[in-house]
């Protein structure tokens, strides 16, 4: 038992680094994921995670695997696409999600194109799926920084974000802003995705953001308990995924995401709200 659960982290430095990285990500991702779900923005999160890719690819072209270059490129591209997305949503009178799908596909294509300009297929795999086990101290510091900034910022703007999330017109109507809070929130989402990008790659970075939050929503409707649960689930999925990847020689990122998915499956079966959480809660009739 001890050999199974503790030995890998005890013996190998890279496993410890990976674990700390995943724990930091789980902390930052929990409130972000819960708020994204509450605001029905999971598609937006998907788009942003892909939007990070061309920027990170440019960073890779310029400087190779440098945390600074990859992150900076990723953040800039993410912010740019967030701005484009809100502009596109405004111009599209159908109020559809179509512009988001366009941005999502274009970002992915541009990213793959850019990486192929210089990199090999291995580089492409690295960008697309990440490598948790190759995280170095710099990446770790970046993740810690992002987690700190995310948690502190959310603590400061939690109330307006929550209110804006369920009644967006109210804050606008009384002239108390709202747009600013949404902007800060989107920026935090991009930051978390860029931090997760190193470990999970552009295709899977949304996984650790959304899956624990979706699982947490099965257990309670109260937002702050959801955040705590999502954090716990994130940690649990990380540990389980890392151990599975160590013992069974699986790629670590996908293993962690699958573990998160399994937690959701379990919550769906076991939790009181499970089967109702994924459909909109029915309004009681008059």
């Amino acid at each position: 038992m001890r050999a199974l659960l503790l030995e890998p982290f005890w013996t190998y430095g890279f496993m410890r680094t990976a674990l700390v990285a995943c724990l930091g990500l789980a902390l930052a991702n929990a409130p972000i994921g819960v708020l994204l779900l509450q605001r029905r923005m999971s598609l937006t999160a998907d788009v942003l995670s892909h939007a990070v890719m061309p920027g990170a690819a440019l960073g890779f072209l310029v400087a190779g695997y440098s945390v600074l270059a990859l992150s900076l490129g990723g953040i800039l591209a993410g912010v740019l696409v967030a701005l484009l997305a809100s502009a596109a949503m405004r111009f599209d009178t159908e109020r559809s999600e179509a512009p988001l799908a366009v941005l999502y596909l274009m970002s992915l294509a541009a990213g793959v194109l850019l990486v192929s300009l210089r990199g090999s297929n291995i580089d492409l795999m690295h960008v697309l799926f990440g490598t948790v086990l190759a995280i170095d101290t710099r990446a770790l510091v970046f993740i810690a920084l992002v987690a700190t900034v995310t948690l502190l910022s959310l603590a400061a703007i939690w109330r307006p974000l929550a209110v804006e999330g369920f009644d967006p017109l109210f804050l606008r109507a009384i002239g108390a802003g709202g747009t600013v809070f949404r902007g800060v929130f989107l920026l935090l989402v991009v930051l978390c995705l860029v931090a997760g990008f190193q470990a999970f790659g552009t295709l899977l970075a949304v996984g650790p953001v959304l899956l624990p939050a979706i699982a947490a929503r099965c257990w309670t409707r109260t937002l702050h308990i959801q955040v705590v649960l999502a954090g716990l689930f994130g940690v649990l999925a990380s540990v389980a995924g890392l151990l599975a990847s160590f013992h069974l020689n699986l790629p670590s990122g996908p293993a962690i995401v699958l573990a998160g998915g399994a937690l959701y499956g379990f919550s769906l079966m076991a939790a009181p709200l499970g089967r109702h959480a994924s459909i909109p809660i029915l309004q009681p009739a008059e």
Partner: protein
Amino acid sequence: MTMRGPHFTQALRFGAGAAGSVNRMLRRVFDGGMRPQPATDGSAAPSLTLDGVSAGYAGQPAIEQVSGHFAPGTLTAIIGPNGAGKSTLLNVLAGLMHPQSGSVRIEGAEPASIGTLPQATAIERAYPISALEFAALGRWREFGAFGTPPYELLPEVMAALQTVGLPDKATVPISDLSVGQFRRLLFARLIVQRARLVLLDEPFAAVDAQTTEDLLAVLRGWHEAGRTVIAVLHDIGQVRDMFPLALLLNRRVIAWDATATVLAPDTLAAAGMASARYDPRAGQLRLVPG
């Protein structure tokens, strides 16, 4: 987003001295330049003046060249057939929509003292917040995004819930309220907001008769307190009984006068409408172009 017990609130107060300047700074940056301010009741009611307002989607304005004046303390119903642009007009008045041309001038009310009730579909009802907390949000301008709702607000919020007939629903999550009860709660938030200009979009749509009656009483109370109230309505019976003034809209202003005059056949004929059939059973107004 919780309103906590007295101990917690007071503990926060004691700590607030040092955090006060940070709080003020945050507000300047985030709260749209809003300064925390006590809600006042007494001052003069606001008035609105519209000058050639057109609004809607590009190329197809929902309202065109709307001009006129809502005098301070008046109670006006906006009526008209489906697709007449009633909601568009109300959203423009509320500042939720910008006019394509023309201007809206509001005197005597800053945005924070305008109470708006858009069509209720915009609110995410599954959100875990109690009726009490929801109603307390009405006083947002007093505590802002970074303050805590003051404990002294509690009796006032409870009184508002009492007024709208929800005294025993304070701790109930908004997702558990019926459609009618939620509409009552929205009125409670407007009461807590102490709005001096109240804009309502179909406030009684899909609501039972008892709720409508109770909320009409609240509305009458606002009018008697001298506030300016404007409501989009489709029940002509209500308009006739309750609203001294009416604005008949069909993309343009057809008539804007005392309700009896607006609803008179002569007015409608003069406006190029051959007849306005009022079906008492449906409570609907149908305009037939001449």
